[in-house]
């Protein structure tokens, strides 16, 4: 790779967000939408893609403008940029499908305050070039979508007995006699599922660390 030894390679930047530095499971960012929209898989998907779009667009713009923005108005400027793109997404979705727009509730607009976006703008895009920022944004966006889906699948399957409900591809997994656990699509279910998934994530990471340590010793 022609990259200088300045930091992680582009591939690392890209893939980090998927799992190793997953914004939800590792950095605990963007928990609000993670909890709020994950009661059906399709919502997760739409939310993930919208967030990805905003992340990438704002990443591009902010990394381009990073040298012109004074430190004091940094946050305000970033927010303006982000809010612009969110509003754009909002109108785009409305013009594509009103049904999808309705199913996401207010949370499209709340992408503005998703800490992932401002967090990446602050921590990455304002310090890196356009190319790397885009890679990071795509990686983080996909990581976010993966995390949303991790929750969404569990919540929808247990809470409704289906996958991809409200879409033409709806699959009923357990047949009509399934008793849905309505708690799963309610707020407490969101907290529980994320809590338990974090628990497994921690366990998995600890085990990996322990193994790495054991290997290093051997």
């Amino acid at each position, binding site marked *: 790779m022609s990259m200088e030894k300045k930091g992680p390679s582009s591939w690392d930047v890209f893939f980090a967000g998927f799992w190793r530095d997953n914004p939800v499971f590792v950095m605990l960012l963007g928990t609000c939408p993670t909890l709020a929209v994950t009661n059906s898989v399709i919502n997760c998907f739409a939310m993930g893609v919208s967030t990805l779009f905003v992340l990438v667009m704002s990443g591009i713009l902010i990394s381009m403008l990073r040298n012109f923005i004074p430190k004091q108005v940094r946050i305000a400027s970033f927010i303006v940029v982000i809010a612009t793109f969110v509003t754009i997404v909002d109108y785009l979705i409305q013009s594509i499908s009103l049904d999808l727009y309705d199913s996401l509730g207010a949370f499209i607009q709340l992408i503005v305050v998703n800490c992932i976006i401002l967090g990446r703008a602050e921590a990455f895009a304002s310090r890196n070039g356009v190319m790397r920022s885009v890679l990071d944004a795509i990686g983080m966006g996909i990581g976010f979508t993966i995390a949303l889906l991790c929750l969404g699948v569990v919540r929808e399957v247990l809470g409704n007995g289906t996958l991809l409900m409200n879409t033409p591809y709806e699959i009923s997994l357990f047949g009509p*006699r*399934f*008793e849905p*656990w*309505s*708690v*799963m699509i*309610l707020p407490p279910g969101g907290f529980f599922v994320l809590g338990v998934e974090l628990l497994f994530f921690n366990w998995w990471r600890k085990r990996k660390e322990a193994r790495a340590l054991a290997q290093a010793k051997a």
Partner: protein
Amino acid sequence: MSTEARPLIIGSSPHIRVKQSVPDIMFHVALALLPVAAFAVWSFGLSALLLLLTTTAACVATEHTACLIARRSTTIRDWSVVVTGLILGLTLPPSTPLWMAVLGSIFGVSVTKSLFGGLGYNCFNPALVGRAFLQIAFPIPLTTWTPPDLPGRFSSLLPTTLTFPFLRADTAALADYIRTALASGGVDGWSGATPLSMWKFAEVPQFESLPRLFLGSIAGSTGETATWLIILCGLYLIARNMMNWRIPAGMLLGAFLLSGAFWLSDKTHYPSPMFMLFSGGLMFGALFMASDMVASPMTSAGVWIYGFFIGMVTVIIRIFGALPEGVMFAILLGNAVSPLITSATQPRTYGLVRQKRWIKQ
């Protein structure tokens, strides 16, 4: 040099201790629950028996498994988890499908107790969390009631009891079963409601007669019906100094006063305070759930406030909320605020001028 062969023991003072230990206390609580359980089996039959056995076994098994996973020595011998299992069983409707009971047990014990570090560290009463989880997850089966003393209750199970795991409980079949059974006993008509929901959802509020409430010949959760027995068993624990009497006292008083105030304002719409006290799970909640030591405040004043708070919230939820019964949620809320109550009511230390400890600047 005679004693030198066996070295002296050294240890920190005090060198004597009271004999009552944690397993003793928990064992007696379980013991005090047994008459209530027996009455439940007597009024609701085989299904109730199976339900109680299932929850107890499932709770014990969950705790044991959790200990194995955490590589700790098992803690099932301290009886606390048996108490949890019994309480959970006693708060469920008799027709609860067993698979739901198992799910509630697993959820309650693993999430509320094991994850928090086991006995003594749980912030909430595990049985209650299991119950609330089931209530929210499966609202319909958990608000489907069975009348007590059904003919044939000892010869057959209720149709929903053995529902296949994860499948819907057939409440229609249950209603048919009940109607048939009642008809064979010469009774027609069954509203399918507890005294509380009859009051709340009926067109014209219907108040159950107090003696029936007191004696337990009403529909309700397995263990909540026989008020007299619950009081007796609670008094046993209080007499053995294994329960803080202030909690049930505060809770009953809180519920009594608040519902009394409402009752005085409109006697036709609001139920009498005695109805409030004896209906639903208030008595059972006061004596066996709110009084759970682990999740209640530690100071005498705090315990009164805690009881009072739960009693009042129960009444508020019952009267204004969407649900007919609020004891469970009220106690959970009480559990949630109990650390705050404890720290706010810590009495003045001997010889100390009271400081502002709540918010330090």
